[in-house]
């Protein structure tokens, strides 16, 4: 019989746990999206700068 380890003092219903999982996964997906969008933005900025330098030259 397992004694629960790190979660032995966790007292919550399965529904609450499901909600927690959804929140945690939502956070992960949100971070992933922000990372992808910010990477796109950075690439676009670099491209713009390259164009500006090319135009200047």
């Amino acid at each position, binding site marked *: *019989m*397992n*004694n*629960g*380890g*790190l*979660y032995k003092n*966790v007292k*919550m219903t*399965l529904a609450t*746990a*499901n909600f*927690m*999982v959804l*929140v*945690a*996964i939502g*956070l*992960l*997906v949100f*971070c*992933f999206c*922000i*990372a*992808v969008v*910010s*990477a796109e933005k*950075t*690439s676009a900025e670099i491209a713009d700068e390259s164009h500006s330098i090319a135009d200047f030259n």
Partner: protein
Amino acid sequence: MSDNSIMPQGKFSAFRELPGKDRKRILTDALFNNAMYIIIAFAIIFITIRVPAFLSLSSVVNIISLTASKLPIALGIAGCIVLTGTDISAGRAVGLTACVSASLLQIAGYPNKMFPDLGVMPLWAVFLIVIAIGAVVGLVNGFFVAKFKLHPFIVTLSTQLIIFGTILMYLMIGTNNGQTLSGLDESYTDFIRGTLFTIGGVAVPKYILYSLIITILMWIIWNKTKFGKNMFAVGSNEEAANVSGVNVFLTIVSVFILAGIMYGITGFIEGARIASSSASTGINYESDAIAACVIGGVSFVGGTGKISGVVIGVFLLQIIFVGLNFLSVSANMLYIIKGAIILAACAVDMRKYLARK
């Protein structure tokens, strides 16, 4: 053939015969328990669509190589997690052993050689030294956890700081003056990074083979030895294991020593792989390893976990990290995503425990 085709059909028909409420519960459980795998699968598909080169041969070999380099540390930490503990000194232990390996295996006559009077030591001797260092780190961790019943988090937090201080002091020895250790002997770099074989023009490094051997050895230790069975018994329920005649103290200390040896091996590999060891080598390796273990099903509940799970966990995590690099995601954002992955994996792990209870 007929048996294989009948079994899933039988299971499926049994599933269909269940009441609607039970069917919904089974589906919800399956969805939540495999949430991390589903998310990672979606991420891989997304990255592949955006950057098709992600699944090129060289990229796949790169992902496997990175997995191989991080596997020993994850296998070590997995043992500590099976005991319902953790080990946050792992990364620093890797850093220390990488620095020691690099310092003892610098080219003779290299301008910034840490020990100018020391020739190039034999590889086996350095390997034994770093394994001994790792084992001592593990012994200290294990002793304080087993003897004084301190939580592994606190013990390994302390040793992490002690090891970091030791690395900084070690790097000041001789003429090095805290600089990065480079100029490694060819015998060392070739032993680790040398080409094992070539596939489609892409070189496969030798350390993949070493990692494979270590994984097989760990599988045997976990599944086919008395020590492995004792480890799972102690992790599952320490008091019950004690009553059953298991030497709990010795088991805990041995698990931590084994983990320390794994950090030593990782350090030996990393020293040659990155070829420029410094005080920052190994930083945050433990967070990647812990995340990989939890993704791979090594539960913080204790007494649960498989070597195959750890391998899959490390592999999936490396796929994500390499994929994010392909998407040109900044290194700063990677830390945030790593943290979110650990959080989500732990939430799923806790939910699995509650569902079983």
